[in-house]
């Protein structure tokens, strides 16, 4: 009797499994469709797009649109392609991610291992930063950047993103370090390590998963940000997102869809890369400390 029940359970699970896989494949196909359209159309000549089917594979394969998007397309005043803006974005995103992650780690360390009066309230206030809509701070931030003489510079954007990111990174690191045994800090104190030595030698080397979470989160957000880039950057410091918009929105001449597609993929590539390389740590890090063992 029990064996029969078990067998039928297996059979049901097999049919259910087939159904689940079918459904998942369907969803995967649905979600991958736009990427397919982008990929396919970025490697065909413009005439094939305007004259035919968006879904069809190219008759003539060409990387010309990619080359054009990267180094020749008219973005803004000059025909520079997306290349300089790509580097603008890199120059902005790398220091911004690095600084906000380190500061978040330091905050988390202080808030959990060097408790002081009112630390919970302070942490609560910092969490508010996660909920403030971007639009609200535009004008005050413009004022601050003006005072610091950072308006229109890459470092100005770095400052904006660091300030906006600290709320999130502090949240991540505080929760991670809350589960980190305080006895380790005490042992290090007895061993003679100071505040920063404990941080560099004990805390940070044990923070791999949460660093990955913080880096992915910050990288994706800062790279994809459009509003701050469009508001606070000038031509010499505009990030990739703004340049892509300028490329696609340009109202003069023929709309080169194949170049637009290639440019859009170029703009999305770094976040994709970061996610693929570090993604498997992402879920692991988000779950860290939530379940024992």
């Amino acid at each position, binding site marked *: 009797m029990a064996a029969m029940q078990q067998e039928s359970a297996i059979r049901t699970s097999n049919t259910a499994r087939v159904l689940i896989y079918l459904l998942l494949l369907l969803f995967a196909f649905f979600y991958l469709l736009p990427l397919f359209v982008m990929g396919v159309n970025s490697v065909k000549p413009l005439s094939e797009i305007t004259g035919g089917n968006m879904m069809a594979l190219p008759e003539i394969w060409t990387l010309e649109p990619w080359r054009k998007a990267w180094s020749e397309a008219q973005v803004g005043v000059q025909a520079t392609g997306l290349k300089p803006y790509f580097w603008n974005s890199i120059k902005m995103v790398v220091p911004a991610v690095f600084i906000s992650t380190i500061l978040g780690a330091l905050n988390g360390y202080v808030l959990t291992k060097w408790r002081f009066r009112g630390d919970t309230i302070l942490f609560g206030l910092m969490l508010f930063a996660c909920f403030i809509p971007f639009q609200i701070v535009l004008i005050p931030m413009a004022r601050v950047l003006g005072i610091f003489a950072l308006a229109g510079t890459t470092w100005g954007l770095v400052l904006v993103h660091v300030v906006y990111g600290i709320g999130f990174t502090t949240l991540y690191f505080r929760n991670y370090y809350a589960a980190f*045994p305080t*006895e*380790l800090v*005490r*042992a*290090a*104190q*007895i*061993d*003679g*390590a100071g505040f920063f*030595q404990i941080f560099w*030698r*004990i805390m940070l*080397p*044990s923070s791999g998963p949460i660093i990955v979470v913080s880096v992915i989160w910050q990288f994706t957000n800062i790279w994809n940000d459009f509003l701050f880039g469009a508001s606070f950057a000038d031509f010499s410091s505009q990030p990739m997102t703004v340049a892509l918009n300028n490329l696609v929105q340009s109202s003069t001449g023929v709309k080169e869809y194949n170049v637009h597609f290639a440019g859009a993929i170029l703009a999305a590539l770094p976040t994709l890369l970061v996610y693929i390389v570090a993604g498997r740590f992402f879920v692991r890090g988000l779950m860290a400390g939530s379940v024992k063992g």
Partner: protein
Amino acid sequence: MGFLDIDSAFKTYGSVEVLHNVNISVGEGEFLVLVGPSGCGKSTLLNMIAGLEDITSGEIRLKGNLMNGVHPSRRNIAMVFQSYALYPNMTVAQNITFGLEMHKVPKAERESAMQEVAELLQIGGLLNRKPAQLSGGQRQRVAMGRALVRKPEVFLFDEPLSNLDAKLRVDMRTEIKKLHQNLGTTIVYVTHDQIEAMTLSTRIAVMNEGHVQQLGTPKEIYDTPANLFVATFMGSPSMNLVPVTISANGEAVCAETSNSFGETVRLAVPEAGSDLRSMSGKTVTLGIRPEALTDKDGADHRSTHVERCASAVGVTEPAGSDTFVTTSFGEAECVARMRADTDASSGAVIEFAFNMEKAVFFDPKSGIRID
């Protein structure tokens, strides 16, 4: 003045006082165990000695030097934590030498100090492993190695064995005792396990609710507990407490109680002090350890004051080496420790032997011992 002095130490958190007027003086080479139930303040006291917690008032001195406010790393102490607190990102070797590195000891010296400790604790084969790759016992050794390598004046142990399984705990206990005998260092050791306290210490401080209840050698604590708390906390099974009425008749002093049938039992008290004499006619609490309450053949032959009386056996619990037999005296349940092959069986009436040399008396109201 001792080696480590704790003078009228108080500790308060806000309005909560967790340590009241602690006075302990530890001599050089002594093994002091702080024992008590959880929340009694023993770990707080240890952290205060380590410098991890501030002292609210009072003084802590090491070799006569005032330690209040001195940073933990400058007190020349080392601590072994309950969780071992090994740095997870460092190898065993790095864990052991981290403290020396922080104190700017040259590399060659660090290396030789580490080898010495590794040999002493037999962890030479583990030096390149990470803590996660070690078993509980190995982690324990590494944690001790990290403490030993700095050659501190005082070792502090915070319940170091409580995370080990029962067998390993006994082995490590012996090893800590050996280590103390070989090195002769001063140790302050916190535990809630009274057997650990008895076996390891040269002196014990029994603590409860922030007060030191009694400070003395293991034998003093066990044989002449200062009050009912110490009497019941130390020893397993705990001391039997029987309500008795004292009757002083000239030189002779008797404690009267009843057996399981309600018949009066008179137990002669040898060498009764004047305080006990003055309680004549009043009810006090007689404390007698299970091993001082036996069957007549198992009684201590060297004792000259064994009192016998019959009573009915409640339950017998054979524990292999001994058999624990319950009965009642003065309507209080009593446990007697008898030989393993005792013929006591449930419901039988047998003769119990009280070794009155080991009996102690307490004031039932204040709980304090009466001599």
